[in-house]
């Protein structure tokens, strides 16, 4: 690539997506349906000091394509972005979102607001989902540094952006995760309660949805758990995640495997 200089009229400004499109950097679009691996369940739960996110690690096609992909990434210090749907497009989408936010920051010397980031992604999702069968359904959550609260934004297939005041789920396991969250959510959850509820909801999704990978005790692979609060994006240590899922799994075993046996 040569030096990308623009005249004042054609300048794409601090918008990396527009720049990438104008210079042909972004991928061409597929028009035919092809069966490719898709990434599954991610949930986000608001608690009093921020947002907790939990995501499984499996990419599934006709069979398991990967057991250890990361579906939640830090888009910047205070923002997390998660994906479901086409794994290929999703991972590219995360990369594009991360880069776009950083690009904006470097070009203007200011960070985009959290709402600005959510709105920025809408037309990109719309453009992808309405022109290709490689649907991607992201979830954006973060700590709003100007309003000092944790916020969650979910998107529909056409790119519509909706803010959720409680929790959000994406991916094929979401009916099961959503049911668990609906029963357990309260508006005054503290961090520990939110982590516990999130882990439980993901466990249920992994238990009932064949595409969602639950805790894998054989390989020592566990869902990702992330906290975003005033200290920024932090990933919960693998040992702590493993212990949490082990407890839930033991409860299910001790109850004779009945549904609801994970609760106590």
């Amino acid at each position, binding site marked *: *690539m*040569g*030096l*990308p*200089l623009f005249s004042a009229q054609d*300048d794409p400004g601090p918008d*990396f997506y527009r*720049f*990438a499109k104008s*210079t042909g*950097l972004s991928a061409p679009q597929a028009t035919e349906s092809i069966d490719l691996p898709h990434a599954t369940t991610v949930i986000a739960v608001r608690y009093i000091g921020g947002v907790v996110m939990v995501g499984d690690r499996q990419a599934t096609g006709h069979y398991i394509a990967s057991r250890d992909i990361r579906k939640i990434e830090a888009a910047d210090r205070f923002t997390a972005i998660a994906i479901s749907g086409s794994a290929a497009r999703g991972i590219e989408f995360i*990369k*594009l979102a991360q*880069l776009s936010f*950083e*690009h904006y920051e*470097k*070009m203007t*010397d200011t960070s985009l607001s959290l709402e600005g980031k959510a709105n920025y992604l809408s037309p990109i999702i719309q453009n992808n989902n309405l022109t290709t069968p490689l649907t991607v359904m992201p979830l954006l959550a973060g700590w709003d540094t100007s309003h000092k609260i944790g916020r969650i934004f979910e998107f529909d297939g056409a790119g519509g952006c909706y803010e959720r005041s409680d929790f959000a789920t994406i991916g094929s396991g979401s009916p099961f995760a959503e049911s668990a969250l609906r029963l357990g959510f309260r508006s005054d959850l503290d961090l520990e309660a939110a982590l516990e509820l999130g882990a439980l909801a993901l466990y249920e999704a992994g238990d009932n949805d064949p595409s969602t990978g639950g805790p894998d005790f054989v390989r020592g692979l566990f869902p990702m758990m992330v906290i975003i609060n005033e200290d920024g994006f932090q990933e919960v240590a693998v040992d702590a995640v493993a212990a949490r899922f082990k407890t839930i799994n033991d409860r299910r075993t001790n109850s004779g495997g009945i549904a609801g046996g994970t609760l106590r």
Partner: protein
Amino acid sequence: MSNYFYVNPEQLTKDRAEFAQKGIARGRSIVAAIYETGVVMVAENPSASLNKISEVYDRLAFAGVGKYNEFDRLKEAGIRWADGTGYTYSREDVDARALANYFAQYLGQVFSEGQKPLEVEVLVAQLGNNIRPTKLYRVGYEGTITDEPLFAVLGGDAETIKGRFAASESELKPLSQTLKDCVSAISGPERTIPVSDLEACILEDRGARRTFIRLNDEQVSELLG
């Protein structure tokens, strides 16, 4: 019938160089120096929002002197080039030398073919790691590129500042000492620049991917002691 007048290329080049130098000399200078664990860049800049030093990429920074709109456009092109290159290949493929070369080619082209030369001088600084060295590339208004070993000075008063700085700098020092040397080289013996008129940025490893830090007034005063 078109009118073609013969212009002596030597005279033309001289005139253009003089024009660019005059423009650059109107602005204040910038000093960049390598210290023990990073790179520091210091500019005299009374504006807190119209920056002369900017982050370009994970380990790359840009500094420009001369006409603001001209070097700011180069800065934007540099950020776009770096982000585009990292997006296409890998983040570790973004290299200061490649970017400095593009700036050099562009400035050289405008100098010889444009309506008027650009009245700017720019610097591309790179913080080294295990695959690339720490580097300071200075690119002049006519496209000459120089690889400065320990420190670089940009701007009209470059030779004087360079002399003052060279006297103090022969080996790598800690940040606070290097920053002091930079500031006294810019200000000279008779003048003190208030901290609020200094723009100071560093590239330093903090365990994160991005290494660029813009130092605020308190941090600068503390380092200057």
